[in-house]
């Protein structure tokens, strides 16, 4: 590389500010990584150091897996997030198609209701939904974790906006070819909307993988615990908080999301920008 890069004062300053911002965001993760790699005596020692003197990540991981059934919690997380996402798509796509492309009485008010639904925070409806699940006898089960999130107004809104950009001719062509309206949703709209579905998938999976609030209030039995609850479980262990294994467990729990993101990074960002532009 013979080309020299000249940095003016302003670009330099910009990069310094950006780096500082990145550091603030990354600091907890770095600290988590550091703590997970330290033996107990180093964690509790008064001096602060980032690099552990004695590298104890494997011991901490072994202890974390020994203390709790981490595989089980990861599997729970997978079951819950995949079920939620699949059901959300199952409901949001036909709804969005109807709102975007079919002409029927009351479409405007219905769409206004969808928009209104986005404004309602999930915490506001938590207690009624909790009572409903209680009456149904569905508390403390996978159903309690999945059912309240199957209708995503955000998903309906996002997909509807995307479907608006699909030319009407394509739908008419499908009708001429003999594809039914539901067939159009799954065979024509879904494949063209893959970028939007991907973007929505990221939001949905990340939100429900990391959700702490809802599993905490509907679950009692540890066998249904989702990953965030499992981490909290470590903190409440009777012998007092053991930060090394706790951080190691946290590491295990965020790992699937980080790995998935790294693997599909380009597609993810493509999806988000695509839906943003259109």
């Amino acid at each position, binding site marked *: 590389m013979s080309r020299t890069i000249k940095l003016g004062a302003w670009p330099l300053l910009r990069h310094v500010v950006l780096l500082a911002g990145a550091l603030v965001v990354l600091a907890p993760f770095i600290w988590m990584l550091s703590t997970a790699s330290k033996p107990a005596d180093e964690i509790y020692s008064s001096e602060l150091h980032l690099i552990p003197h004695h590298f104890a990540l494997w011991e901490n991981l072994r202890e974390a897996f020994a203390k709790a059934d981490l595989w089980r919690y990861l599997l729970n997380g997978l079951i819950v997030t995949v079920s939620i996402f699949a059901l959300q798509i199952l409901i949001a796509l036909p709804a969005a198609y109807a709102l975007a492309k079919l002409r029927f009485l009351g479409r405007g008010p219905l769409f206004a209701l969808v928009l209104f639904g986005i404004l309602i925070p999930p915490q506001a409806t938590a207690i009624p939904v909790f009572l409903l699940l209680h009456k149904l006898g569905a508390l403390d089960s996978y159903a309690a974790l999945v059912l309240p999130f199957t209708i995503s107004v955000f998903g309906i809104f996002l997909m509807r906006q995307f479907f608006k950009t699909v*030319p009407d*001719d*394509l739908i*008419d*062509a*499908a*009708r*001429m*070819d*003999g*594809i039914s309206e539901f067939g159009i949703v799954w065979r*024509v709209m879904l*494949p*063209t909307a*893959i970028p939007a579905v991907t973007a929505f998938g990221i939001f949905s999976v990340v939100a429900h993988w990391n959700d702490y609030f809802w599993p905490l209030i509907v679950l009692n039995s540890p066998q249904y615990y989702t990953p965030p609850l499992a981490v909290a479980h470590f903190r409440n262990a009777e012998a007092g908080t053991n930060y090394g294994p706790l951080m190691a467990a946290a590491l295990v729990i965020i790992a699937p999301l980080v790995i998935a993101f790294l693997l599909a990074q380009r597609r993810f960002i493509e999806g988000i920008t695509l839906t943003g532009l259109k």
Partner: protein
Amino acid sequence: MARIELSAIRKSFDTTDVLRGVDLTIEDGEFVSLVGPSGCGKSTLLRIIAGLEQQGSGEVRIGGEPVDGVRPSQRNLAMVFQSYALYPHLSVFDNIAVPLRMKRLTTLERLPLLGRLLPNRYRVEREIRQEVEHVAAQLELSAFLGRKPGQLSGGQRQRVAVGRAIVRRPVAFLFDEPLSNLDAKLRVHMRAEIAQLHRRLQATFIYVTHDQAEAMTMSGRIAVMIGGELVQVGRPAEVYDNPRDIRVAEFVGSPKINLLPGQIRSDGAVETLGQRIGVATKGIAQPCRVGVRPERIQVGSGPFVGHVVHVENMGAEAFVHLGVEGLATPLLARIGDVRELPMLGSALRFGFAPDAVRLFDAAGKRIEAHAAPAAVRTLEVASV
């Protein structure tokens, strides 16, 4: 193959009447163009024939059967759209195969994985493959069967859309401005291809376009639609030569017909720009409009004088724009020999034969006129 009859078709969106009672019969194997300015309702009419839109009132019959309430796919028509409307996620092969798969495979057999296990599917798929390959060969698409529409040029996409239409062997083809997304050169080429396709298939074609040149060059009959009504239906030459309405005269033909203000005298003689033009009519004294096609204007001699304001040399022919006193817009005259073009700004005499004149009344309706038998040509010329 089928005859398509439309009777008293009306359609309105909210409060606007898009179609105001359209009657049209399209014979089996005929190539009819619906032509008109944008917003005249021609696409809506086509969509009503296809079944994609419900008419407000009136009846559509295909092959003698009323098709109201029959789903688009059951009408067995094929449509080619302006945007081609190819499925972007499917290959050219799959795009062409879709109508056949929808018709011949059951829902169960179409399932992605399970369907493969069913014995019938294998047999039907083999038939479909043969037919798609046959159609692709006809349209010179064989080399592109594995590509996605995004990897094709505009003309190739157009051919895929046509392929998807012919593969199902419909009773009639509907074209909705299929060439307007192509560049000018390709459009002329595809015009010839579609005309050939019609000759080969001998099927009923209904072709919607706003481009009168497309309609004139391809179709057996053209139906000029303006403001939701069929104003004139006839062979292209007839519509061009014998427009029943001033809007038809203006719409058909490029460049546009020249319209001069005129006056019908009480003796039936017609005057324009202060000159009698050797045309007589039976009508009463009234103001009128005198229409003359650019190619019927004779330049070099005649009772009128104009100034050359612009010359368009197309190579094979040229159009001279003449500024004439008493006319708001320049008058256009075609000159066949481009080697003898007049100078800009020069004064030019011009005239036209009585049989070149098409007369319209103030409301735009055609007035029948004939050459005045013993017309005394006034040769005096207003000095300009």
